[in-house]
């Protein structure tokens, strides 16, 4: 007798800490035959709302595109406006921005540790890493006033300088995290359950990489050394010494090893930043925000987020409102055509783990 395919709906209630989205699966037994991503649960039309706001009001929406990773979006907005209006950013502000971006990268990867393990039923790791992430959020709170949303890297520099003694706190937090990462290795990477559930699972074929616009740890997990911080350096990344980790497996395990190594590299970068950071101004004065007419033109700026390329296409028509702001998120390509392409043949129990390893962030897709 022929087995009949069954339709299974995964989501839209957070299918693995990825945000509200749904994957419609056709399954034969436990094996996926086809998959289709459905979004539409989180559309807030931020980019439409930006058309009604002035250039600084509009900035406050930026950090809300992807909740676990807010800082690269702020950085993009600031750089887009600076690029359009030819604003010079003080050197100190660039160093501070890199410190914030790398702290954010670590915080995002700690959240990923939780999501990736949680999707496999390994909850202790999540309790540890989310707890440790809070130490970074403490730093953000002291620096910016906000734990998750910061609104700190604004056009012209950063909103305020480092508080007194802040560098020491950052270094102590990094020392602590470095020790904790060894515990993470014992609990996660040495765990035979984690190994068996991730090795050979969620394989991204190398021929799919260009076709699907694969970026970030997914790209580097397939053995390709590509990172916007090196390929098209922004802020002061060209003055810093760090490595781009790669792996060959192109499965969840390989991507996990890449992310693990990237946390170590971020720690290395922040230490250099604190060592090299010059004294001086932390922002450039900008025009009165209520009357600020950014020069007409268009630009596309990119940044390497913890999940890969995020980009921002910005257009000004010379008025006080942005004409068009359009975000390209890493998840936008990974969680739709790539996910739909790699799921057939996989086990239904692995879908959440695969989504996590691709850096899925639903709010970024529909914005």
């Amino acid at each position, binding site marked *: 007798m022929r087995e009949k395919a069954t339709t299974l709906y995964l989501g839209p209630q957070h299918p693995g800490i990825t945000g509200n989205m749904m994957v419609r699966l056709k399954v034969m037994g436990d094996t996926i035959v086809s998959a289709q991503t459905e979004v*539409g649960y989180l559309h807030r039309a931020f980019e439409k709302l930006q058309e009604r706001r002035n250039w600084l009001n509009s900035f406050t929406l930026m950090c809300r595109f992807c909740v676990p990773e807010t800082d690269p979006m702020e950085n993009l907005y600031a750089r887009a406006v600076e690029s359009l209006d030819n604003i010079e950013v003080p050197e100190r502000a660039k160093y501070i921005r890199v410190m914030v971006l790398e702290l954010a990268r670590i915080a995002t990867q700690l959240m990923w540790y939780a999501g990736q393990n949680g999707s496999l039923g390994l909850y202790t790791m999540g309790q540890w890493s989310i707890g440790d992430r809070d130490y970074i959020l403490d730093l953000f709170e002291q620096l910016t006033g906000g734990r998750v949303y910061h609104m700190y890297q604004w056009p012209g520099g950063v909103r305020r300088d480092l508080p007194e003694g802040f560098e020491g706190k950052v270094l102590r937090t990094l020392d602590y995290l470095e020790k904790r990462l060894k515990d993470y290795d014992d609990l996660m990477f040495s765990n035979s359950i984690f190994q068996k559930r991730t090795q050979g699972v969620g394989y991204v074929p190398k021929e799919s990489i260009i076709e*699907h*616009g694969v970026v970030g740890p997914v790209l580097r997990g397939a053995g390709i050394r590509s990172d916007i911080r090196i*390929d098209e350096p922004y802020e002061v990344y060209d003055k810093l010494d760090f490595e781009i980790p790669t792996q060959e497996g192109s499965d969840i395990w390989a991507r996990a090893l890449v992310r693990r190594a990237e946390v170590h590299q971020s720690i290395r970068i922040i230490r250099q930043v604190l060592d090299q950071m010059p004294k001086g101004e932390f922002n450039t004065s900008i025009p009165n925000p209520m009357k600020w007419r950014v020069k007409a033109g*268009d630009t*596309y700026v990119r940044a390497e987020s913890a999940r890969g390329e995020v980009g921002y296409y910005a257009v000004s028509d010379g008025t006080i409102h942005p004409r068009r702001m359009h975000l390209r998120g890493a998840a936008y390509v990974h969680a739709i*055509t790539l996910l739909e*392409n790699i799921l057939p043949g996989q086990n239904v129990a692995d879908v959440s783990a695969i989504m996590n390893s691709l850096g899925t962030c639903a709010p970024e897709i529909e914005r």
Partner: protein
Amino acid sequence: MKEIKDKMIAQINAAFPEAVNKAYDGNRLDFTVHKDAIPGFLSHMKDQLGFRHLSHIAYVDWIEENEFELVYLLWSPTDKVKLFVHTRIDRENPVMHNIDMIWRQANTYQREIKEMLGIDFPDMVAPDEFILEDWDDIPPFRRDFDTLEYVNRTFWHRPGREDAQDVRETISKRSGEEIPDFAKKYSR
């Protein structure tokens, strides 16, 4: 970088004489191409000039000129050059060529453009709905779509939750407590 860009501009001009180049500093290369030439142009950029990565397809509504603009943003990993390919589409007849056979991910971008701007891609195979559900108004990212008017027409305030209330006066009315003198100057 200038040498690389000059060489690329010469190659593009030779293959597509009608493509219009605009000069930019840094690693930005910028061409405007007729919409009918887009699939061939992009395919050539990908296969012959090393622009293997499609970063994005951005869209703008130039309502004053009665046109939509699509901007294909490409990246060359070997030459580290960013290519902007602009094309304009008549707002009255918004039809564009599908390019998802060149990059599969373009399917997602085009689905968004179709839904949010109303540009049709006749050759594209995709489910009808992407982000919006049962949408029966004009595409919402067109400039003439008025978000405020739509919200006022579609939704309504619950009694007591009307907009633009003075917070202090409303609380005072409900609770019967008077607004302290020092706070009165802040009320409308």
